[in-house]
């Protein structure tokens, strides 16, 4: 895979570590940006011209993953966004569908992350 950039946003450090380890294994050339919440993600992406893949948690301190996705989608219309969450309610899945972003149920596994990265 080409050299691309992935943004990982999750308030759980353990989750970020697990996702990061899988991305580094599957796409070792990729640039990884980590953020612990929505504000952190927006701050860290300010100067980044292109982000190819975004993996966003839903329940986080401050704005939730869907609100963050709306903002990021506008700024990076080409990016492939996925909600990766333990909140697997149908209503949340419908909102993600409506927004045109992926919905992936936690727990984090190599197959799920690989699936997200494959389409980038």
């Amino acid at each position, binding site marked *: 895979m080409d050299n691309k950039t992935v943004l990982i946003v999750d308030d759980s450090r*353990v*989750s970020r570590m697990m996702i990061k380890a899988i991305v580094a294994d599957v796409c070792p050339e990729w640039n990884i940006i980590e953020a612990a919440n929505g504000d952190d993600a927006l701050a860290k992406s300010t100067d980044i011209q292109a982000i190819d893949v975004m993996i966003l948690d839903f*329940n986080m301190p401050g704005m939730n993953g869907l609100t963050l996705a709306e903002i990021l989608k506008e700024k990076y219309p080409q990016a492939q966004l996925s909600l990766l969450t333990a909140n697997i309610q149908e209503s949340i899945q419908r909102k993600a569908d409506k927004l045109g972003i992926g919905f992936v149920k936690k727990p984090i596994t190599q197959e799920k992350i690989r699936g997200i990265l494959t389409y980038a």
Partner: protein
Amino acid sequence: MPEELKILNDLQLDALAEVFNLGMGNAAASLSEMVGEEVELTVPEICFVNKEDAIKLLSEQASGDVSSVSQGFSGPLGGMAMLMFPIDKSLEIVRLLLEDTVSLDKLTEFEEEALCEIGNIILNSGLSSLADVFGQEMQSTLPIFSQGSCDDVMNTKSVNEKRIDIVMFLRVEFSIEKHATAGHVVYLLDVNSTKNLTKNIDCYLKKLSIAV
């Protein structure tokens, strides 16, 4: 034996147990994916008791101090969901989760956060099943970790901030067979939830065309 509170009739209780059976089945599948081991699940048994009796029941079953993850929830029902593991087994669960990511000597450093993530996934499975069956959305707070006796973890500041009326004591054991580890899940319901629970279960039964 603690006094069981008669909140639901047998049919309502059966419907609720089925909803949680589905939710906990999803939770067990998730836990199995996380730890890479087969997870056995007992059929959820539900009873309603007051908080003091819930602590007694848990203390009898947990046989010792526990690691607990709690998450507040609101929506059609409000209160606090809690997952508890025996304290002496929690590091083993963390090891199963993180053995490919973190070196053994650093496991303790990640124990709290890893258990919060496990709790987040298991508790949300149960809450999501309830929300889907009720056709409504539920919100949950971020997971909070605590350790101590059952009495300690059921009386933390975050739990006591909720105006808990009754405890929906969902006794479900997750057994990670090779490691002889079991966990318990309880839902503490606030004062406004009892009526809503009955109302929502009746709506669910009506949708299924089952006379209440």
